[in-house]
């Protein structure tokens, strides 16, 4: 009996191939690191300036034609609302929320605006298998309801719990989230409605790179006023919306444990292996199977030929 490939060499070759395939994509994934569009816009939110007037919420509701709220936007009792032990959050009827935080040792409350942070390398976008999300060169993370299948993976992927599902339209799946007023304003170089409405200029609109410069200048010139950190400069690989605060960020509801690199980096290497697994593994294991059952097959064949004789 003469075989061209012995079982041992076949397994050796298979293993070598698997190892090579596992090692190679790593180089590829490093080259694919995306640092954001150079002229992408952003907003710097300064918590020391916000007075909790809710003008941004009202302006957003009007601009995005969202449903009427339960309470008027000049009703400040909403700051005391708690839902399942949590402060208010964004949902299908509101793309942005201002929450109040009573910080121990501080004689006045602090207010924090919440909306999509428009990540440089968004987890919602990379998790979406129908590419419903787009990061535009202007800096916005926008969403296309036409291709969305309503799987809601983006809601799980988002480190800031921003995308919400419109449960009221079950057969027409639709994610609701802040789109940086892309269609109506950002595309034309105009600031989003919330920024324009803010009386305190707590929201500063500009090129993301410039905003980091501005943030640094504020910290440098009034060091007693600010924490020496711009939240969003590096968090989850950088976000277009960034924050300045007078108190440690975890005291005003920020998740300070989010990684400093894009969420994508944690799954990129794994995802790189998927095509290899799908192409090499079937052939590899089919080969194992054929080799393992070869003896039986030969035996059967020999018996057949004996019978024929």
């Amino acid at each position, binding site marked *: 009996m003469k075989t061209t490939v012995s079982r041992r060499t076949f397994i050796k070759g298979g293993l070598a191939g698997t190892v090579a395939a596992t090692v190679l994509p790593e180089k590829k994934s490093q080259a694919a690191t995306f640092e954001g569009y150079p002229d992408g816009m952003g907003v710097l939110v300064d918590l020391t300036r916000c007075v909790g007037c809710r003008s941004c919420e*009202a302006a957003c509701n009007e601009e995005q034609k969202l449903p009427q709220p*339960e309470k008027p*936007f000049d009703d400040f009792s909403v700051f005391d609302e708690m839902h399942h032990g949590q402060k208010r959050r964004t949902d*299908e009827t509101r793309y942005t929320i201002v929450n109040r935080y009573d910080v121990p040792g501080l004689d006045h409350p602090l207010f924090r605006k919440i909306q999509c942070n428009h990540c440089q390398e968004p987890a919602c976008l990379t998790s979406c298998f129908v590419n419903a999300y787009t990061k535009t060169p202007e800096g916005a993370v926008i969403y296309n309801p036409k291709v969305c299948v309503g799987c809601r993976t983006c809601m799980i992927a988002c480190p800031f719990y921003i995308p919400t599902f419109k449960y009221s339209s079950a057969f027409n799946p639709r994610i609701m989230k802040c789109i940086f007023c892309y269609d109506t304003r950002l595309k034309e*170089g*105009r600031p989003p409605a919330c920024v324009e409405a803010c*009386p305190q*200029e707590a929201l*500063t609109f500009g090129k993301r790179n410039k905003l980091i410069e501005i943030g640094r200048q504020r910290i440098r010139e009034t060091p007693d006023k600010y924490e020496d950190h711009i939240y969003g400069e590096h968090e989850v690989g950088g976000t277009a919306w960034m924050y300045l605060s007078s108190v440690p960020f975890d005291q005003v509801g920020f998740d300070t444990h989010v990684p400093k690199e894009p969420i994508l980096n944690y799954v990129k290497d794994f995802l790189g292996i998927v095509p290899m697994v799908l192409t090499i593994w079937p052939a590899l294991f089919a080969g194992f199977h054929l080799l393992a059952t070869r003896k039986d097959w030969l035996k059967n064949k020999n018996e057949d030929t004996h019978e024929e004789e």
Partner: protein
Amino acid sequence: MRTRKKLLRTTLALAIGSVLLWPQPGSAMEAADAPETVEINSLSRLYSGVDFNHAMHTEIATCVQCHHHTTGGEVTDPNCIRCHAKSGESDTVSCQECHSSDRFSKEDLSKRDNPALYHIDKPGLKGAYHLNCVTCHQKTGGPTGCQDCHTMTEAGEKMFQTGKYAPTETTGGEHSGH
């Protein structure tokens, strides 16, 4: 020849005038020269304008607290003093002369792209008013509610969905309750 003479005369008059008017160190615009009230209404849309009682405020605050380095006494802020210790009085002291009323417009943003510019973070007019007034009012116990200074207009009521535009039991409550 006549025009030349006229020009010379004007130049001379201007030269003498500017020497006489040149701000002496420490001297300031007299508070008495300042207006009694200032009507602040160039931006009013959602809220009506403010009849700002300037005279009253000159009694409780110094000029530089609001006018920075443009008028009043000497600059004390260590960040401003670096350049404005001797910059003297400005020709005009109105807020909108320096603070842009179209903040965040393309033009405003491109002006700030100049790498040699220090004032990249100068607030727009609306921001300048509120940051100046509200910050001081918070410290001194002055009025801080929106309608304590200016009443809401109908356009404001519409945007804030309050007053006659307030949600009723039947129209409101589309909120999913998360």
